[in-house]
């Protein structure tokens, strides 16, 4: 057919017309990597997002300083966390902090997991497709052609990188603050066992990765919502409402049967890592839940994005 005239055959004359630069063959992976790195650059070099990460980093610092000021020298005692009503038994975490600064990481993650981290991921994921549609850059990306599926995959991977970055910022800032302000050494777990500092830090890493997985699922939900609108702020609001709504429903005893199926239900189970032995059943349940949410919502995003007219 005539189409073959335009497929591989048209490639060779491309470069001679452009200043005669030699073109060594480039593996497709490298081109995809270039697009992905450009997407990361777009996210991480944007002033708004840098500010967002800065605010996220400020929280563990302020929590650490606040707790230090509130309980200056009362090892073992302390009033716990009166303001914390989280499902993870964060109150117990607060008690442990006085004995070991490492616990500030768990406290910070438990507190920020409720709203701040999901909100940060909502901003990036809600903006991902809707923002491009709003600027009108989406039609040019597709005309380049970036490829609809390829664009969506790059967008989602970049969201995941942002979610991981935001979560690790919380952990690192909390760890540094905790170790600077509180005593540290062997870690006493929630189950009462004491493990070495190295084992404690290993658990910090596991908890952080678990939180990353939870946020990656939020990112997929955000990506899907983002493909349905060209108003980024609407998408961000919708994701936030969904997260908060899920958390509220999870607190109502009458809806307990639905609990395990809610997107936020398994977030709080990261304290399973702080017991001896680890409650692996809950951990696997949680990871399965995140994987299903991420998969289903990525598919929704794909189905929508590859079939919808781009009218912006």
């Amino acid at each position, binding site marked *: *057919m*005539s*189409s073959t*005239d*335009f*497929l591989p055959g*048209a*490639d060779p*004359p*491309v*470069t001679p*017309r*452009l*200043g005669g*630069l030699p*073109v*060594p063959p*480039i593996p*497709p992976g*490298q*081109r*995809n990597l*270039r*697009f992905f*790195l*450009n997407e990361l650059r*777009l996210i991480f070099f*944007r*002033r708004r997002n840098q500010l967002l990460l800065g605010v996220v980093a400020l929280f563990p610092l302020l929590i650490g300083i606040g707790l230090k000021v509130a309980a200056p020298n009362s090892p073992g005692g302390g009033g716990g966390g009166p303001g914390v009503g989280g499902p993870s038994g964060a109150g117990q975490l607060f008690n442990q902090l006085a004995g070991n600064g490492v616990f500030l990481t768990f406290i910070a993650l438990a507190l920020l997991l409720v709203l701040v981290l999901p909100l940060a991921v909502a901003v990036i994921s809600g903006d991902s497709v809707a923002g491009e549609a709003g*600027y*009108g*850059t989406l*039609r*040019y*990306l*597709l*005309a*380049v*052609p*970036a*490829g609809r599926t*390829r*664009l969506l995959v790059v967008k989602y991977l970049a969201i995941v990188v942002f979610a991981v970055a935001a979560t690790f910022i919380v952990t690192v800032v909390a760890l540094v603050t905790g170790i600077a302000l509180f005593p540290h050494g062997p870690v006493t777990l929630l189950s009462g066992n004491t493990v070495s500092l190295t084992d404690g830090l290993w658990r910090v890493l596991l908890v952080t990765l678990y939180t990353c997985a939870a946020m990656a699922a939020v990112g997929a939900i955000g990506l899907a919502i983002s493909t349905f609108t060209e108003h980024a702020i609407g998408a961000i609001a919708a994701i936030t409402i969904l997260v908060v709504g899920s958390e509220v429903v999870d607190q109502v005893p009458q809806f307990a049967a639905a609990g395990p199926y809610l997107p936020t239900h398994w977030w709080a189970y990261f304290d399973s890592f702080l017991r001896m032995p680890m409650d692996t059943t809950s951990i696997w349940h949680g990871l399965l839940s995140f994987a299903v949410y991420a998969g289903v919502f990525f598919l929704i995003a794909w189905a929508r994005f590859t*079939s919808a*007219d*781009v*009218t912006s």
Partner: protein
Amino acid sequence: MTTPATPDASATPAAAADLAIASTALTKRFRGGQLAVDHVDLAVPQGSVYGFLGPNGSGKTTTIRMLLGLAYPTSGSAELLGVAMPDHATEVLDKVGSLVEGPAFYPYLSGWDNLARYDAADRSVNPRTAKHRIGTAMERVGLTAAAKKKYRHYSLGMKQRLAIASGLLRPRDLIILDEPTNGLDPQGTREVRALVRQIAADGITVFVSSHLLAEVEQVCTHVGVMRTGRLVFQGPLPELRRTGAARITVHTADVEMAAKVFAKLGLADPAAGAPGVPGDDTITAELGDASPEIVCAELVHAGVGVRGLAVESPSLEDLFVGLTGEGFDVEH
């Protein structure tokens, strides 16, 4: 220049290969039921500068969106450079530069970074030549000095030129420009026109839409005219001029006799009296192939006292308005 044949020409591969854009009964009905594009059969020859004309809202942009695979047709089909759209969009769009419904860039990035963004999204270019290609494209549209400036500080003309530059990031076989002069001052309009000429001089097919005939008239070889979703004319520009038949107007006291002479000469569409003025002593008809000298001689020979004789050809603008209708048309 080959004349774009009738739409069914795209059915044969040989003919389709000569067409940069070919569509068959391309139709788009919006979800609300509005018929935006109605059985449009485009035939844009390779190497032509094709002016896609029509008033605002006549379906030009929707057609372009379907050609680029941004919107899916309700029915009908389209081919870009012989490749079916939108199914094989990614195979052919790298040979097509486009400007759709005005420029769109990231306001917080510089002009250079904006082009780098679109270039990075292109999976079939060499990343190592990116700097060279972006620099060349910016130079070509005269934005080298503003390369590091944030896009949000660009003037409208600069934005438009940056959009054209993004279409020139790599060699193309076809450039689609949707209203490239929209919102530009006369100087900017001239710059864009000069760019279109340059691009066409390189042998690239240019498909340029406009709601102003005068803007594209000087650069186009072919035109297509849209009216309320339908393609009402398509062909080489001289053919459009020819469709505007010249009319002869004779001023005489003996209108009846003059009408007989007109009939004898076979002049089409005779009409006595100036339009809207009953009892006027003029008669007009389409001149056709007859020469005004012969008509005059025949009239005098038949004893018709000719007081005045004039031949008028409608301007291209008149033809255009005749095709597209006056002012807004919201029939659909």
